[in-house]
């Protein structure tokens, strides 16, 4: 698939799995209890469901881009975390192609990226994907 300028990329909504937060906690060596212990979330007044790790939220975007550009590679990504994403919520990643340029490294796609959870914008930013020149 070759995306065109202005084209929007998205995927079907996905459920945020609390069990995956245990995997992230192990991989990240992250002892922050709000990802694995709902009582810790309640005690901090942050809600009544565990909160997904930031890298987990970014990965929804990354996986969408990897699927859309199977011959490409991620060259850069910059995100703002705007709200928490809770276990069991449905998230939808999206990206809009802002520019396409040929460079010495290959074809360079600049994209505006976003992640919505149950309709809330929870992450936004931009990404750069490099693909082989055509």
């Amino acid at each position, binding site marked *: 698939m070759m995306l065109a300028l202005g084209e929007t990329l998205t995927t079907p909504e996905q459920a945020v*799995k609390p069990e*995956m937060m245990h*995997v*992230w906690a192990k*991989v*990240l*060596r*992250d*002892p*922050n*209890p*709000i990802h694995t212990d709902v009582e*810790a979330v309640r005690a*901090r007044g*942050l809600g009544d469901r565990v909160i997904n790790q*930031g*890298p987990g939220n*970014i*990965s929804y975007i*990354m*996986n969408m881009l*990897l*699927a859309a550009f199977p011959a490409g*590679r*991620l*060259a*850069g*990504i*910059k*995100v*703002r*975390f705007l709200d*928490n994403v809770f276990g069991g919520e449905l998230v939808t990643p999206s990206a809009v192609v802002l520019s396409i340029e040929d460079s010495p490294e290959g074809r360079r796609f600049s994209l505006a990226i976003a992640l919505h959870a149950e309709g809330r914008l929870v992450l936004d930013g931009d990404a750069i994907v490099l693909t082989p020149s055509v």
Partner: protein
Amino acid sequence: MSDIGSPPDIAGLSLDGAAAIVISADENRMLCEGMGVAPASDGQAHPSYYYTATQIGMRLTVRELCSHCDFDVENAPMMATSEARYLAPLMTETPYRVRGQVDSLIRKRSRKLGAMDLLEYRLSLIDSNGATVLETFNTWVLPRPELS
């Protein structure tokens, strides 16, 4: 408005890792499979390892870094922004060294979160040839409800 004081002055604190970090192919496979995606067949690590590998390979654990900020990790630090520049794909079973430092720790008051500290730091992954393969810049929010 009450005085919310100042955080510790840790700008410039070195985060250089003491030993090389290796992204385990088995762990990468576990992570990818958990997310429902196939691991790359050519040994590339999932790009989210920009964050994971640098965090694990830096000199301090998350708990220790928070402690330098006079903040208990049990009080739930949150990511505010994150940026990665990949100069080459990240590979599994390949040693990388981590270089980095704390850029700033600033105390401020947020309408949404109340008093908080903003921690900014940068980390790089260096391959065995001395080439930088990744640069990352991260900002964490350290809530300070006791100061609000």
